[in-house]
């Protein structure tokens, strides 16, 4: 049965109608029309659907929408504002999170379909590990699959973003 729910996404509270067991992904995509989190497997195996839940990466394809009530969801679209908040800036938000900028600078994506989860997972990693080693990056990213073969450039981009973020975005 469909229920009326409130969920907080990228700083805004939205009223949505969905059965309580509906995976969060379908609510984000079909109700809120967010295109960052994407369906890949529906089995929490690939990570294309990842979002941050109170700052930690989760798989929205297997997380019931009822389970996120009262918590803050950040999607790929919300990364720039998250970065602004982390820096404590209240001025105009940066256009891009340093990870997104690094993804452009390094020319990471091919088709780009999986890259949502890659950036979300990297944002989780860098929020707790400011200057990760290559091994730490490889371990943190190991649950995300890319078919195009972009892993080497993702590694480079995360290192670049970490360096930028360590300097406060300068």
């Amino acid at each position, binding site marked *: 049965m469909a229920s009326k729910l409130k969920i907080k996404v990228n700083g805004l509270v939205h009223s949505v109608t969905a059965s309580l067991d509906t995976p969060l992904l379908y609510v984000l995509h079909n109700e809120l029309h967010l*295109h960052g989190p994407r369906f890949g497997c529906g089995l929490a195996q690939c990570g294309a659907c990842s979002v941050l839940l109170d700052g930690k990466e989760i798989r929205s394809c297997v997380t019931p929408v009822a389970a996120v009530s009262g918590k803050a969801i950040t999607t790929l679209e919300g990364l720039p504002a998250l970065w602004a908040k982390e820096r404590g800036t209240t001025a105009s938000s940066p256009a891009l999170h340093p990870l997104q900028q690094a993804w*452009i600078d390094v020319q990471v994506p*091919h088709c780009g379909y999986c890259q949502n989860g890659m950036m979300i997972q990297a944002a989780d990693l860098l929020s707790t590990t400011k200057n990760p080693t290559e091994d730490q990056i490889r*371990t943190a990213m190991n649950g995300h699959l890319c*078919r195009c*073969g972009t892993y080497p450039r993702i590694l480079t981009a995360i290192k670049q973003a970490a360096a930028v973020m360590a300097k406060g975005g300068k």
Partner: protein
Amino acid sequence: MTGLLHERQLSRKTFLKGGGALIVGLSLTGAARAFDDPKAASPSHIGGVAGPPDPSQIDTWIAIHADNTASIYTGRVNLGQGTPNGLLMIAGEELDMDLGQLTFVEADSNVTPDTGNTVGSSSITSAGPRVRAGAASAKQVLLGLASAQLGVPVSSLTVRSGVVTGGGRTVTYAQLIGDKVFNAQLTASTLNPGQGVAKPPAKYTLVGTSPPRIDIPDKVTGRFVYAHNIRVPGMLHGRIIRPRGQGAYGTAATLLSVDASSIRNIPNVQIVRRGDFLAVAAPREYDAIQAASQLKVRWKDNPVLPGDGNIVSQLRAQDRAGRMVNTTTVTGNVDAALASAAKVISASFTVDYQMHGPIGPPVAVAIVEPDSAVVITNTQGVYRLRDQYLAPLLRMDSKKIRIQYVEGASAFGHCETDDAACAAAVISQELGGTPVRLQFMRWDDHGWDNYGPTHLSDVRAGIDGKGNIVAYDNSVYVMANTHAQETTHELVGLGSLQNSQLAGGAGPTPTTYNIPNRRAVGKSVPLNGGGYLKVAPLRLPSSPHSFPAEQMIDELAHAAGMDPVAFRLQNLTNQRSIDALTTVAQIAGWKPKVAASQLSDERIVTGRGVALSGTSAAVADVQVDRKTGKILAKHMFGVYDVGLAISPGLVENQMVGAITQTVSRALHEGVRYTKSGVTSTDWVTYPIMRFKEHPSLTNVVIQRLDQLPTGAGEPLVACIPAALANAFFDATGVRIRQVPMTAGRVRAALAEAGVTA
């Protein structure tokens, strides 16, 4: 980019039936990105009639707009390889316009020219010369107009960023022809660099540079609209229902019973059936997913596949029974050359079925009314989908069907995308024209892919006493592609392809080397009814032939007591092959030695291998755990000579993808199946390489301004599996002749050779 259809308030009737107003309707509803932007509508063919437009007309290829920008129509699509950058650079170079002034118009069967399917790394090779001809011809018209306007001869004019200067005055392309038609013909249907009115490479300012890809900013922010994100008003969500994992080709799936009452608890679900084609549709996506998973269905079991590990004996048995159709090509006298050779090596090699496996599954949106249809998906060919697949399936005139391309997840070949388009169209047609968005579930895609074919070859090759290759004898079982039609055709009752339609053709011998005596026997496999899976091209379909070939070359080098690089150089004459090989040896710091001449007794051992294919070369550094059998690719070196590299940066990024993906295929990937069907239905049962294991890379692009540009997506794939296997041999002294080189197979190969850790 503006919003999606549902965000606009236009009726579906307008969307489909606008007639003369069709373009307006589409523009307002934003069904296709081509029509979101008025610039994307060429003045000569505004989308109201079925294509393809006349390729001899300049207006088919290019439209200059009033703001001095241009739309470029190429007919090719971005499958993640960055093709828009490459083709726009070719056009911009001839027009003397900047990349930022150009818009790439996505493929649309009512708008874009038919330049063939986006397959085989052919966009630069075969569409490129046509785009170049269109742009160079347009430039001639523009210069003529400018000459008249400025009163100076064409030879006195210069152009920069679409602004023509002459006699101290300037005029823009927009002022000359903005939003008007050229109404003129191409000077030639194709032009290579420097040919006819096309610029010579020496004058290039844009081609040969590496500007950032135009699609990446939207892809990292969530603004990018994938095919998966397309919605139309009143749309239902569809899901197909098939057995979890396909059975043998030609038997598809036979439906015994459907219990509609089993999903009575799910609201608003409709069951769609046509023959053995079964699907559900519902307004809410999760309802459709649950209905598809809970609907009680009985399928007929047809256990005629050989099952894991038995394909080789099945192929051999069918060969002995005379079921293969052999095609033989011969050069010289192979038997005599092998009889007199100093050394002869014989070996058999296998490659398992492998999967396309796009991270985002196939998806399509279809609206099929009695007299017209629109299908939106990320097909590799809008005209093929329209003419070959949908017209016969829907029993509708091709000209009444419109296909619009929107990018999806990369699949590297003919995956199930066109089948999803067919399935969505059937559901919409059965529901009387209700728009349907059909997305495959992960198990639908894994289980019903058109796999890259499994491979078995038997090779004999010989050398003389000086290390010259004297003969190469290759006997290979060839599987023809089954994708002349899709599974949906078979399920609705249109039948499957017969073996007479599935001729496999000849096998290859390695053409990179000087080998005077060659024989290639292609054994065409009877796919229909023979106990095989359906197959279609997967990135570099010829790559299973390179795995045996480049290992045999290595084995011959070892038999000759020679360094693998030196042996190859001795047997080469093509200078570009020699350059590729010597360059990869140089960047890898290759130290000449006989392979496997410095073996270690440690549990963890390392080795290095090389492979060459045409003008691509690779060196692999591997680490092998002799106890677990695990092979790790630690570092890969790649060299690419694709002729004139339109954008070396794009080429280098294709090397990154080609190497990383092929290491995954070589070490990890094989489709598993029982006698009844495929059991690789997700990423656990079909593992691919993960982040922890990816090799670091060193890549070099050789730029050849004096050579024709060729495709960059695939050739290097040929080198990777053999380079890894050759490195494994160097590390262990043991040959591994199976792909994927899984830990279990490595342990078995080591045990068979008596090697213990």
